[in-house]
């Protein structure tokens, strides 16, 4: 404790020499809470919007799980949400089923796990953990949120269209997504989808560029790249991935808009539909697949990378141990990020592309398993001989590593083109990506909320409710996706409204019931989280200066930081972020602001 107290005085002495010239004029309510340029407020705005969107997507999933668990059954709740138009007599309409699946996927991937996850934590943590007063461009940052907000709004509104929302699956492969004759959702629903996603890309680029510039240019004195917390490394790499890949999705969307509205044939060729031969010829739907997955695959790392960062930070703090292999963790993230750009073809083994190209993608994809394995082993070693504090966030990140391992391992099968063709497009794939990407990222995101709640709102969340929330969520998550592998291995394709066409599939109906029950209970248990969140926001116990005894800079600001984050001078960094339980010290943590003692080794610097 002495060292810590010493730094505090040192810092105060340091600050006393300078006058505080960051006087802010009083902001109006609108400037402070609505069109705010403060990264902390923007972070909360992202979080709230993403929570709302996630709630919508979760409800959508329970609606189609009702149909899949009890096909053709009448449910008043379906009628309540979808009305006579889409659930006459409480029975789901097959078109709406596809609409629900599509919008569930789109919201979860883009709005929760990209916008929500990066938006919340990059905004909150980058300035606070690198020691900056705000983002490099607060204005662009604000715009980033408002583009996200409008995109969310448009996507949400598309659910209420007469012809239904986009229904071609979240991957919106043309020609299905291009031709309203093929499916009603490809009318106005698809138009709104494309508009919404285009705006989303704008938001993502504005945010991403800002994150990159802030990390590279606004690090405080002493904050070398090798002293950055892994959260920041992760968010930086995520932003780079996003900036390089999202424009390609934008291009793909623009070309699709042209095909839909202006008679071009980028993706369309030799089509006969609705009793007439279309004039478009020469285009290729496979082109769309290439463009889509050129974003789509980095996208899954855009989703999982911030989760890696959050897991590393929370695990280290709560195990009271340095993260094992800090350099290897950075290296493996860089390797994953690089490889992320040359594996997209593994989504296309059945597309009809050249099989030799397929084998190249098999090779690069299985290469990614190596850095991923390093990460998993390093996390487990971080727990080994730790001093583990079971705060709720620790449970969530352990859960996230578990799902990352379980889902990653089934990825070995799907990366192998010869095996992929046996299970491609079945529930095996659905189970795989929900576990490895969806659950890992969602669990890490929850962990992050519990961990940084005291920084966001100056209060603690209730741990008992946190425990209930974690175990119910975690058990239900596996309850949904573990049996789902078996349904896939039995050959049941995804996106089927029911499985009536092949009698052998009936043998698996009991698993579908189990999945649906777990899914519904799992979604309902999120009520615990929402109650805990909103109660604690106003009435939770007040936070302390450094509630988890962390080393990182965000805990050196006032408990609830004002605009500008540090009232005096910016903190100066003297060491890496992971000096937990360093031998020969009285306390089990040494904040980054504490100067090195004579002869002390900086572990971040090791060769």
């Amino acid at each position, binding site marked *: 404790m002495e060292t810590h107290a010493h730094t505090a005085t040192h810092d105060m002495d340091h600050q006393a020499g300078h006058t505080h010239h960051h006087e802010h004029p009083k902001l109006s309510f609108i400037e402070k809470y609505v069109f705010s340029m403060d990264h902390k407020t923007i972070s909360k705005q992202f979080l709230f919007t993403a929570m709302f969107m996630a709630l919508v997507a979760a409800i959508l999933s329970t609606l189609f799980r009702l149909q899949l668990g009890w096909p053709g059954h009448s449910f008043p709740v379906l009628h309540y949400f979808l009305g006579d138009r889409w659930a006459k007599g409480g029975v789901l309409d097959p078109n709406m089923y596809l609409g629900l699946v599509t919008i569930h996927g789109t919201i979860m991937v883009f709005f929760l796990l990209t916008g929500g996850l990066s938006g919340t934590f990059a905004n909150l943590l980058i300035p606070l953990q690198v020691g900056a007063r705000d983002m490099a461009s607060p204005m662009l940052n604000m715009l980033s949120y408002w583009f996200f907000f409008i995109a969310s709004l448009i996507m949400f509104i598309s659910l209420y269209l007469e012809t239904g929302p986009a229904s071609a699956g979240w991957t919106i492969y043309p*020609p299905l997504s291009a031709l309203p004759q093929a499916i009603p959702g490809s009318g106005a629903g698809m138009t709104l989808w494309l508009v919404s996603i285009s705006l989303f890309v704008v938001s993502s680029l504005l945010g991403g560029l800002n994150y990159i510039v802030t990390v590279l240019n606004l690090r405080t004195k002493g904050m070398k790249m090798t002293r950055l917390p892994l959260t920041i490394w992760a968010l930086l790499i995520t932003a780079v991935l996003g900036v390089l890949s999202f424009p390609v999705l934008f291009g793909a969307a623009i070309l699709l808009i042209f095909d839909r509205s202006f008679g071009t044939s980028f993706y369309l060729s030799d089509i006969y539909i609705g009793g007439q031969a279309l004039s478009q010829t020469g285009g290729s739907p496979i082109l769309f697949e290439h463009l889509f997955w050129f974003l789509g695959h980095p996208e899954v790392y855009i989703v999982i990378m911030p989760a890696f960062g959050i897991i590393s930070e929370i695990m280290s703090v709560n195990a009271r141990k*340095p993260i094992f292999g800090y350099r290897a963790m950075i290296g493996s993230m860089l390797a994953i990020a690089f490889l992320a750009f040359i594996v997209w073809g593994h989504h296309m083994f059945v597309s009809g592309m050249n099989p030799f190209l397929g084998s190249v993608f098999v090779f690069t994809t299985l290469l990614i398993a190596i850095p991923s394995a390093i990460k998993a082993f390093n996390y487990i070693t971080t727990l080994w001989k730790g001093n583990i504090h079971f705060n709720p966030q620790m449970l969530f990140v352990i859960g996230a590593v578990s799902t990352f391992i379980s889902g990653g391992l089934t990825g070995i099968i799907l990366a192998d083109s010869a095996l992929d063709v046996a299970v491609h497009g079945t529930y095996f794939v659905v189970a795989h990506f929900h576990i490895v990407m969806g659950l890992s990222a969602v669990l890490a995101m929850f962990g992050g909320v519990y961990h940084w709640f005291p920084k966001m709102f100056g209060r603690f969340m209730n741990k008992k409710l946190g425990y209930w929330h974690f175990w119910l969520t975690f058990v239900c998550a596996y309850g949904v996706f573990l049996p789902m592998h078996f349904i896939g291995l039995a050959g049941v394709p995804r996106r089927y409204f029911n499985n009536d066409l092949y009698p052998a599939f009936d043998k698996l109906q009991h698993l579908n019931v189990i999945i649906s029950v777990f899914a519904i209970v799992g979604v309902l248990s999120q009520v615990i989280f929402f109650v805990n969140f909103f109660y604690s926001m106003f009435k939770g116990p007040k936070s302390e200066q450094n509630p988890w005894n962390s080393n990182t800079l965000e805990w050196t600001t006032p408990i609830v930081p004002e605009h500008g984050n540090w009232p005096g001078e910016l903190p100066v960094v003297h060491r890496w972020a992971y000096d937990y339980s360093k031998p020969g010290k009285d306390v089990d943590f040494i904040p980054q602001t504490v100067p090195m003692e004579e002869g002390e080794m900086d572990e971040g610097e090791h060769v």
Partner: protein
Amino acid sequence: MIKLLAYLVLIFALILVFQLIRIYQLSAELKGNHVGKANDKDNRSQGRVMIIFVLAFFASLIWLLFDAKGKMLPPAASDVGVTSDNVFMFNWVIIFIVFFATTFLLFYFPFRYKKQKDSKAFFYPHNDKLELIWTVVPSIALAVIVIYGLSLWSKMTGPPDPKAMVVQVYAKQFDFTARYAGADNVLGKSDYKLIDDGANNIMGMDSTDPNSWDDIIVRGELHIPVNTPILFKCNARDVMHGVFFPHFRDQINCVPGITTEIHFIPTITTDSMRMIQHDTAFDYILLCNRVCGSGHYNMSMKVVVDSPDEFKKWMAKQHPLFSHLYDMHHKQAVTTAMK
């Protein structure tokens, strides 16, 4: 009215919950417990739950494995499928070993090293040797997996047997149509602008191409002879569709504008598979596996693997769409020869 009441009940329930949390929070604070931070008691109980969870997790996985018996796909019924099942099994062994080992440690360590009074963490920031080991070992394992997998992939996608029987699978919303290439084993040209459902010219076959005269169109059932290499040429009329043969472990998309191909040798007739499965109602199936519209879930075609004799008999009953042209041409040829 009932709706209003329901909303009121919901609101009161929420208020009740909030009050309960408040009471819990106050009583905890009175006892000197922190509501937000874990104490040693939490560490003990959560550590125990970790162990209970991991055991229950493994148990449920094992239950699922037993439960799946007899409900999964039958043994593969094609040459590539048999190898595919072997590669699958090889991968599963590796996956299960790694899964059980890492998952157990992941939940055991938190239990074993939970914070208790006076406990301390071991400062262990890195160990290059250890990290090298778990870089190299997975690399070797993955190299083996890649080589084994790609050897099958090259067999699957390599050039088909030159004598393979050519069958076109034509997909449209929401059914499949098969076209057999006939005696010449060459599919005639087709053009989407010639499609005429009224004249039963579903795939727009071009009657000016003599190769098309003996082509046979079949709907409803896809018959293939056992132990014969089959080359499927796949096309789509309107949107993308998927040709998925779960029992033969193979799959390809049907894409408007291009022709995609898969080939395999069916190895078990439908009758034999019925015996193996002890199920007289068993049938192979071709499923659409690329979402294609509201009827996607109903898009399939029954597949029948015949013995060569049965196949010949079945084929003899089918007639080419352009049989009149075929007959005319045949007669002309005969007359010319007589002259």
